[in-house]
């Protein structure tokens, strides 16, 4: 491993770390609000919306991580990893198609 790729990987690691933290915090916040609303029995619709939003953010976070990785490997012109990462993204898209078709 050359020094520049090692530095690039360190950068990607930090970006991924921030992205995952933001995702998991946003999703937890929505889920916590949804739970509180549900337990308090205040607004059913609001509670359902908060819970669904929380789950959607949770599911979207790993997908966003893969997209960020594609962008980073593109920037590095590491074509092998661009194609590998795109392959993973394609498999996720396949699941989404299977889920909502």
């Amino acid at each position, binding site marked *: 491993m050359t020094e520049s790729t090692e530095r690039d990987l360190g950068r990607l690691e930090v970006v991924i770390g921030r992205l995952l933290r933001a995702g998991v915090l946003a999703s937890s916040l929505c889920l916590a609000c949804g739970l509180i609303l549900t337990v308090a029995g205040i607004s059913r619709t609001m509670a359902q919306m908060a819970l669904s939003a929380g789950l959607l953010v949770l599911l979207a976070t790993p*997908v966003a991580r893969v997209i960020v990785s594609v962008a980073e490997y593109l920037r590095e012109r590491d074509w092998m990893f661009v194609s590998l990462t795109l392959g993973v993204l394609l498999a996720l898209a396949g699941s989404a198609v299977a*889920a909502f078709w």
Partner: protein
Amino acid sequence: MPPITVSLALVIFAAGVVAGGLGVALGLGGGIFLVPFLTLGLGFSFKSAAAISLTTVIATSSAVASARAGKHLMNLRLGMLLEVATAAGSLLGGITAQIVAESVLQRSFGVVAITVAAVMFARLNRRNVIICSIDNPSPEVGRLGGRFFEAESDCYVAYRVKRLPLALGASFVAGNLSSLLGIGGGIIKVPVLNAWCGVPMRAAAATSALMIGVTATGGAIIYFGHGDLQPVAAAPAVLGVQLGSWVGMSVAQRAPVKWLKVLMAVLLIVVAGLMFARSGS
């Protein structure tokens, strides 16, 4: 499906704490325990248990990986390469389920788990790392190897990845079982990476923690789309994971690698026992 009461939500929250704690130390999502617990213990249907378990796996992955980021423990390239195999395995999981009987799957899983546990016990004192010295500050580790600071040895250590086809095969199986059983698959990848592929325990766990998020997302999207994911039941589990990974963090960092290996091997034996018991019933 049991109605979600406050006390049930608290039980699910506690299960999330355990999953998060194990995830930090061993790179597991905890689904391997959560699914039997939710189905046998709390009376959830398999589909809703697997759906809740997969969301927990995603939450563990995001929480643990974000906490681990910047320490160079996660091997991003190796992880992405193995994820291709995992994704393929996950997509084909449904097909495997149709060809092979469930009891056969469970028994073969049990045999594999016990074999891997035995290998882990045999290799408790074997280390995969090359210590980086002043004479050799960055040993050649190839394109997929890695280098990180290890507090235990108080220095930088490096490792090479060996037997890549085996790592890919194990990831394929892990992905396959993920969609079948509602687990992340760390229970297969981490021991194989550590015992045969040259990856140090902590690096294997951190890389697996990152990977299982994507693996579980593939399955969870499908459950979500089909309406099998009950938000009120998943929410406390996800919140529990946050607490668990936060608590587990300080414990895991101080625990010697040898303990982590013993814990992993013991878990494998417990899971194998569970699988044999279920295949018989």
